[in-house]
């Protein structure tokens, strides 16, 4: 700008060095610091990578599937890659660093929702929402980064305190892994494992939670809880439904019999029998047993192995063997039954030293002697073995020792001759003969019923049917004579007068009904006028300024109209939002 040639008046430029490059560099520097901070923070929070091997992905997907610890997200599935064995899958999980302590050999991972199960409702939810990986931190193990995943939630979570016991069952019925163990309705444990052994049947691992393991005593009774219990008695039928979880997942009931109250608790791993029902548990069979034979002439082939032998409804033994046999010589077929009778049931207290008056039956010989003595006494009283069905005709067959009327005193039969060519193994390893308990003649229920029917027929034959017919004829003729008699006419007259009374009564009541109807009519009229007025008000006819409803409706439609107009205008002139309303060119 200055055109002056006098260059000496121009100031000299001096360069100045400073360590600070200038204010403008503060911005990129600050950005760099922030980026570094975020990067370090992200690295610190990145989580720990662990590998869990599952049999199948079951719908899990990298990035989406979460790792959940008691309902809280603690990580995600980062990748799913085939395992080295080419049969299973490795889940790479990124776990929150705060869970680091729990990642040890005792930690458990499982897929929630991979196997929907009615006993685990959260698995049903997961089946709908997609699977998640469940995680339960372990305690006390050594640090570990590779795990084997479970296909479903562990029934007992690591860290849960309690004791394991074993139940032996012949049939499993509704009990499953995960079924609850209930003590009078209170869940105290769970069935954690079910194994089958050809010899001993099913062997169930049971985990009883602390502090309930003190309830487990050597004489405790376990039975499969039934979802529905029907009780007939006291003139009514009582139905009792088990807890819902038990209905779906099965359950094991537990009770402590009175004699077990004072016992010390069982050690871990103690074995118990799981009975199919409470009644079976109550009638548990234990102690020394002796074999006896029964010969039934009637049809007893469908007597099942394990069927009960009862005395007055108490279970004293069970059927071991049923077979078809023939009488030597005559060739007459019969059913040969071998059953085991239990000393403890037949002679209560005989096996217990403290309860028995006589010296306890400890040796096999003593046991047999005690049993024989009791049975002989019964037979002398007229007791015989008989086939029984409860309920009659359709129920399961059992053998009952029942008193038979008119039976002569009998005795146990010991004959060494093997019958029907069948040889027996001696009971309890004994080679001695097996005692035979005499059976009642016509020894099934059916035989009994047939004989009763016969008796009934004999009685029916004695009924004087002709005499009854004559009597009936006489009664009929008497009735006929009666209907023609003047007494009946008098009754009809009486009825007539009663009807007349009734109509008079109605006539008296009518004057009072009249005004009531009038009043009702008037009320109805008033109501209809009110409705009319309301309708007029709403339709705007006769509406005045003061009456608000039509006014309000009018205002509303007015507002709607304005909105519509605005929308309309904006649609045609969107630029008016910026530029305002302008006259069109």
């Amino acid at each position, binding site marked *: 700008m200055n055109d002056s040639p006098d260059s000496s008046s121009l100031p000299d430029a001096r360069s100045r060095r400073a360590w600070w490059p200038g204010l403008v560099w503060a911005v990129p520097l600050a950005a760099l610091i922030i980026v570094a901070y975020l990067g370090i923070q992200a690295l610190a929070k990145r989580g720990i990578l662990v590998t869990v091997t599952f049999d199948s992905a079951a719908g899990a997907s990298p990035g989406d599937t979460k790792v959940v610890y008691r309902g809280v997200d603690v990580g995600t599935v980062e990748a799913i890659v085939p395992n080295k064995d080419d049969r299973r899958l490795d889940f790479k999980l990124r776990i929150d660093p705060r869970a680091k302590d729990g990642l040890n050999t005792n930690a458990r991972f499982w897929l929630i929702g991979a196997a929907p199960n009615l006993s685990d409702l959260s698995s049903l939810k997961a089946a709908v929402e997609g699977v998640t990986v469940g995680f339960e931190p372990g305690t006390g193990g050594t640090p570990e980064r590779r795990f084997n995943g479970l296909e479903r939630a562990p029934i007992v979570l690591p860290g849960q305190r309690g004791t394991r016991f074993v139940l032996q069952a012949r049939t499993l019925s509704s009990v499953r892994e995960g079924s609850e163990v209930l003590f009078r309705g209170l869940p105290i444990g769970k069935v954690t494992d079910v194994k089958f052994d050809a010899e001993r049947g099913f062997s169930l691992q049971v985990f009883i939670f602390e502090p309930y393991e003190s309830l487990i005593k050597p004489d405790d009774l376990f039975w499969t809880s039934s979802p529905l219990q029907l009780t007939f008695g006291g003139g009514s039928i009582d139905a009792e439904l088990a807890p819902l979880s038990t209905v779906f997942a099965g359950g094991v009931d537990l009770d402590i019999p009175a004699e077990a109250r004072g016992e010390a608790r069982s050690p871990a791993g103690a074995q118990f029998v799981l009975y199919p029902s409470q009644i079976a548990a109550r009638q548990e069979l234990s102690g020394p047993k002796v074999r006896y034979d029964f010969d039934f002439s009637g049809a007893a082939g469908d007597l099942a192995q394990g069927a009960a032998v009862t005395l007055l409804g108490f279970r004293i033994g069970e059927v071991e063997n049923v077979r078809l046999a023939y009488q030597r010589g005559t060739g007459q077929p019969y059913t040969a039954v071998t059953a085991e009778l239990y000393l403890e049931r037949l002679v209560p207290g005989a096996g217990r030293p403290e309860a028995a008056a006589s010296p306890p039956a400890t040796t096999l010989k003593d046991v047999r002697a005690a049993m024989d003595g009791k049975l002989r006494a019964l037979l002398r009283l007229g007791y015989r073995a008989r086939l029984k069905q409860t309920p009659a005709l359709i129920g399961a067959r059992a053998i009952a020792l029942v008193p038979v009327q008119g039976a002569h005193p009998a005795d146990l039969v010991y004959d060494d001759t093997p019958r029907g060519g069948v040889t027996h193994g001696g009971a309890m390893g004994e080679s001695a003969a097996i005692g035979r308990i005499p059976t009642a003649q016509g020894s099934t229920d059916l035989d009994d019923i047939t004989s009763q029917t016969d008796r009934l027929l004999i009685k029916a034959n004695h009924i004087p049917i002709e005499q009854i017919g004559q009597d009936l004829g006489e009664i009929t003729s008497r009735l006929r004579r009666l209907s023609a008699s003047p007494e009946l006419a008098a009754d009809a007259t009486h009825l007539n007068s009663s009807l007349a009374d009734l109509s008079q009564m109605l006539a008296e009541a009518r004057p009072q009904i009249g005004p009531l109807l009038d009043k009702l009519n008037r009320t109805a009229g008033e109501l209809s006028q009110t409705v009319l007025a309301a309708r007029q008000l709403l339709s705007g*006819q*006769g509406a*005045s*300024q003061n009456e608000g409803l039509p006014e309000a409706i009018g205002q509303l439609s007015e507002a709607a*109209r304005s909105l519509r107009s605005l929308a309309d205008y904006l649609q*045609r002139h969107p630029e008016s939002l910026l*530029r*305002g*309303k302008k*006259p069109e060119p």
Partner: protein
Amino acid sequence: MLLMGVTLSACRSAPTRLFSLQAIAPSAAPSHGPGAPNAYQGPALRVDSVTVPPAFDRLELVTETRPAQLKIEDLDEWSAPLVDEARQTLSADLIARLPAGRVIFPHLMKPEGTLGLSVDVLEFHADDAGASMLASWSIDAASGNHGATGGTATLRIPLSAGTSPAMVTAWNQLLAQLADRIVDSLGR
């Protein structure tokens, strides 16, 4: 600074004009009926409702530039909804044409026996050829003893339309003519 001023001024909307209908005295209207004041002595009546073609029933005035081609005048608005304006104006027209007390004001309660007048404007045109209106009215004889039940009229006026004020004039004059026709039908 100048630029900002220009920008700001560009954001300003143009002013909106508001229009309202007005009654026209019988003498001023190009009447087709008898010029003398009507000597109607029947029951009182009230204008219950007036409806107009939906195309015209907007906040803004609608003009017809060519037959069947409408234009919304964005800067010209009715001061009240057109149906209300029309009801008010028609009432005023009738008051001017009927003896005192024969017309009940539109927002007053209808006394017993009052006639209710409903008007439906089916068509309205106002283009360069002139303005026209096809309207029908019916009288709801509340007491049930009056002969006049209604009628239909096609009304026409010469007009150079196309602008908002011209449209308002067309509405005013045609409503006044309609009032004449209604009064005529009452008088018969």
